[in-house]
């Protein structure tokens, strides 16, 4: 961008004054909000040495059953079909279970894998092939037992709407490595967005510039409004942008508001993004062996993505999630700080078609298992694994009892489990996480046995790995120094899982 000499001088002055610390680009705020606003220009005293440069968070919306995937419980198999003892029911709040349900043993076989001897079910052969790279945490617990509040607690630190998501916090704390791409990208599959909707990647009380940008892979613009209108070529767009820039320059000469210079820069950045985003989003550029590694199929748009009820259309070879995993790698490779994947369709109650533990869960596992193994292997072969933190899991777990409000007895295709906040499984990998296992549950997987890990602990640990002190990192709002990990000191970094 060439400016008249007189203007270059003005720009130098204003830059020194206003943009010296922050730089322009995706993180740049309007001048009026840049200064004096609490937190925005905060001291960086929350920064600590980072183990990871970027995060890929794989959220299975609806919450997969740990009983069928990670929890080999012979005792539960033994009690299978028996009535659940009252001590597990009294004083408990369930979403759907009524009266006395029957115990439900794991529906699939388990085997130990790799040097760590990781116990995984037959539904996850891909994960088994990378079992020595992941740390399985079987002692997660949460405070919420409904999807929307539990997802919000997990990802925004508060079960109510209106708080910034973890990706926004990280984006706010660290910014993007690549000023031509957003710092926080969201990719969704499974035909629906998660229960709490776009609030999960909203910026809450942080400036909107830190919110997640949903990139779409279903055939439309990858970022909303990225494409020029039909009939406006890139050359024609350049000519209009040149005119906009020149008129804005006149405006700046007359009025002198540095905001106008920011505007000029942001329009130029938008123009560059029109090139850079489709480029990075185009997985068709990947060689066949990489596509096969993930099970990705460029350009494939699954019919489940636009169905009113996608669950009945799920197929094991649906590549949508695999495409998103490959895209996630391309994004972190290009400096995106936080890539959030959501895969909908994991709420296996067994009460309606397409949501059973026995029939739907295996299909969902096929959709993700190869892709996830591919992602880890691909990151490793590119030397990116150690600097990329991967997190996998749902918003809570599922009950060791069978859900009984619709089908009282076991019925093929309608076997399901209710929501269970007291114990569930997640795993983390890469980004300085030590492979192995952490925590355990009791014999039937109802309560945590040892080493509980709360949502707050998880959040603290994630921030710690990306180079943020979770206790110091805050934003003044509503009279409080708001933090992702909440107001109390309960959340701790779980050092045992850090290498």
């Amino acid at each position, binding site marked *: 961008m060439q400016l008249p000499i007189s203007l270059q001088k003005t720009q130098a*002055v204003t830059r020194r*004054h206003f943009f010296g610390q922050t730089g322009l680009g995706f993180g740049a*705020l*309007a001048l*009026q*909000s840049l*200064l*004096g*606003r609490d937190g925005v220009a905060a001291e960086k005293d929350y920064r600590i040495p980072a183990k990871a440069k970027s995060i890929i968070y794989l959220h299975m919306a609806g919450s997969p059953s740990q009983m069928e995937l990670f929890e080999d419980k012979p005792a539960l198999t033994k009690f299978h079909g028996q009535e659940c003892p009252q001590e597990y029911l009294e004083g408990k*709040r369930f*979403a*759907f279970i009524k009266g006395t349900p029957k115990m439900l043993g794991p529906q699939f076989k388990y085997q130990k894998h790799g040097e760590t001897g990781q116990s995984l079910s037959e539904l996850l052969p891909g994960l088994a092939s990378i079992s020595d790279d992941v740390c399985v945490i079987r002692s997660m617990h949460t405070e919420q037992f*409904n999807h*929307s509040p539990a997802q919000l607690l997990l990802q925004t630190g508060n079960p*109510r709407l*209106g708080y910034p998501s973890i990706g926004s916090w990280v984006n706010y704390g660290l910014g993007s490595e690549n000023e031509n791409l957003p710092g926080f990208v969201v990719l*969704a599959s499974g035909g*629906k*967005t998660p*229960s709490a*909707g*776009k*609030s999960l990647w909203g910026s809450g009380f942080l400036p*909107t510039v830190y919110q997640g940008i949903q990139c779409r892979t279903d055939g439309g613009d990858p*970022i*909303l*409004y*990225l*494409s*020029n*209108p*039909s*009939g*406006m070529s890139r050359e*024609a*767009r350049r*000519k*209009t942008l040149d005119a*906009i820039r020149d*008129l*804005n320059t*006149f405006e*700046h000469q007359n*009025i002198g*508001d540095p*905001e106008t210079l*920011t*505007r*000029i820069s*942001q*329009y130029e*950045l*938008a123009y560059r*993004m029109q090139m850079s985003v489709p480029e990075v989003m185009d997985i068709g550029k990947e060689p066949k062996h990489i596509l096969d590694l993930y099970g990705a199929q460029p350009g494939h748009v699954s019919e489940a993505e636009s169905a009113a009820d996608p669950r009945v259309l799920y197929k094991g070879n649906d590549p949508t999630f695999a495409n998103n995993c490959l895209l996630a790698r391309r994004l972190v490779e290009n400096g995106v700080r936080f890539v959030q994947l959501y895969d*909908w369709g994991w709420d296996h109650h067994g009460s309606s078609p397409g949501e059973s533990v026995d029939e739907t869960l295996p299909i969902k596992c096929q959709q993700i298992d190869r892709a996830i193994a591919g992602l880890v292997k691909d990151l490793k072969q590119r030397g990116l694994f150690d600097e990329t933190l991967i997190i996998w899991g749902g918003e809570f777990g599922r009950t060791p009892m069978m859900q009984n409000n619709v089908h009282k007895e076991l019925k093929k295709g309608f076997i399901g489990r*209710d929501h269970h906040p007291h114990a569930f499984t997640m795993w983390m990998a890469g980004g300085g996480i030590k492979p192995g296992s952490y925590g355990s549950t009791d014999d039937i997987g109802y309560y945590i046995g040892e080493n509980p890990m709360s949502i707050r602990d998880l959040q603290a640990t994630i921030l710690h790995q990306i180079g943020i002190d979770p206790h110091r990192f805050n934003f*003044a709002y*509503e*009279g*409080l120094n708001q933090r992702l990990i909440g107001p109390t000191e309960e959340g701790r970094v779980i050092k045992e899982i850090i290498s």
Partner: protein
Amino acid sequence: MRCCFTVALLCFFGLVGDTGYAADEPVSFNRDIRPILAKNCFACHGPDEGTREADLRLDTHAGATAARDGRRALVPGRASESELVARIESDDPDVVMPPADSGHELSVDEKTLLRRWISEGGEYKVHWSFTQPVKSELPPVEQSDWPKHPIDHFVLAKMEAGQLTASEKADRYRLIRRVSLDLTGLPPTPEEADAFVADSSDRAFEKVVDRLLASEAYGEHWARMWLDLARYADTKGYEKDRHRDIWKFRDWVIHALNRDMPYDQFTIEQLAGDLLPNASNEQILATAFHRNTMTNDEGGTDNEEFRVAAVKDRVDTTMQVWMGLTMGCAKCHSHKYDPISQQDYYSLYAIFNQTADADRSDDVPVLPLPTAEQTWQISEIEAAIRVLQQKKQEKSDDSLDAMIKEQQKKLSGVRNAVTKTPIMKELPEGKPRETRLHRRGNFLDQGDRVEPAIMELFGSIDAEVPVNRLQVARWITQPENPLTSRVMVNRVWARLFGTGLVETEEDFGTQGMMPSHPELLDWLAVDFRDGGWSIKKLIRTIVLSSTYQQSAAVDVKKLAADPRNILLSRGPRFRLSAETVRDQALAASGLLTRKVGGPSVMPPQPDGVWKSTYNALKWIDATGPDRYRRALYTYWKRTSPYPAMITFDAGSGEVCQIRRVRTNTPLQALVMLNDPAYVEAAGALARRMNDVDGATAARIRRGFRLALIRPPSDDEAARLLEVYEDLSANYAKDSAAADKLVKAANREAGDAAMIAVANVLLNLDESLMKP
């Protein structure tokens, strides 16, 4: 951070020298000391008894001067005998305060200030915003011909103290565009601008202002501000996020503002209209303000949990909106900085805890408000049924039964179609809900029983009458309440100037920022309160000041001296709101549908944006006049808000939003350049341009005036003509591309190059900014 900023500000005002505080200026507790104590000490030695250390409180004079083991933290007038001074100056890590692990550290200047404060008597003063506002005398100014209004005296005095001079008056084109956008959210027409420019009377500007305040667009524009506070949306939130019929509340706000309902009445009706004697439907409708809280329809949820969440939201929102106090923290423990205990919180909560709504999926209680036509239909059908029943009494006839049945079915059809707005309604008398304190904010962990009561912070309310929401509303609006008027005038000021006189509009408590112009704020607050709480009058007063009418142009020197225009030595210039950006484009292009109120509408939105869980609601792009309604009427779904407006910093409507933070991002550029709604606006603007008979230059000039109101300079006109001719040549060679762009702009035929030029006009920085 805040503290540093305050100090910086004070330096700026010339109150202090470069090296610290001027020796001759006495230390002010509110300005200098409380911020230091609040930031560094109150967390452990403040109002919260739960976390108070060593049984010492420093937020009150009595606490600080109490003898403890023979020592006193504060010995008035004797700094060296005061334990506080000994502690802050100690080198011993076991003794020094604040302790190292607290993360707080006092600067040398702060220590000096504390010492000086104690030496000068160590007096405590009530936090500034908790004292009564008074109209102080107008300060003397040097440039005495500039002030037109008391506002200008206060502003100029600060300006002169900061060695700045006022800017000249904005030119009339920019001025009328500014005031039109500010008062109505719509630009003037070029003809209105020309009339103003040609009007040589002294009252020319006043006439414009009065015309704008009298237009219906005024209420629509200022309603948007209020709807942010009301967390208004067309859906219920959470997982299912289903539709909610609450647009009649939006219309209530528009009409109340247009009628200039006094702010005290506006407050009372929204908080407790249902409790007024002989409450009208309109007064009951007003209480929908607090039914904008969310309802969780997700299967398997505990309704009580979300009912409680909604009630807490009402308490927090009430205190934030009307009094600028943050209550969020008092849910779990007593406020660490402001004198609000957890007990106070739950006493207030107990008052709001008495309504009948209970997180039910039908949102009852609701107020059915039939249209005139529906009322007519209902009475007609009822009459028909009566006739049939009479006949039936005279002689039994099966066919009569069938006819009655049919009429009844028709009746329930009409009744079902009646809009039912969720409203506030008290539980039946004699059946109050018991309230208990929630330990650590957890509604499942109930503590001692709490009786409804209003905190005693600003004078109590007549104890004879029941303590209910109406009493809360009266307590908020009684003249003795020092916050209500200050908070509202500050809010209006912030919408007009971009930043409040108190920048932290949401926090007038001890953690909030000090006002930049305290006397001005108080002058406006008293004038507003004592002058009948008229919002229109308040706005009129402000925009008629010289301060408001200054040019926004700034030179490098002034910019360096006061980058954020805290001293108001130039006019306000900031980006238009998400809604105004849209409305302006529709108005300039002639597309705008002028219709006030009614159900929310669905202007075009990209396919696939709505993909929510278990929600059958579909976004169907409007094709008729509803496609071009003001942004305020756009259907707002909380978990998937309208993307183009979110990009321009509109809120989601999930919680009360006191102010929007303005950003400037490449995504905004993409919306303005490529969003089909704006491409369509460019198409319509281009048509208006080409309607001008004459040369291309005249057409471009017309477009420029429609978009920016002022005439273009020669350079601007030439540059636009250049790009037009350049693109015109291109499109002449590629007629397929030209046709495509014309079609993208939703036109049958047209001049593609002119559409591109119109697209340029709508994307100019000046278009997006208040001039």
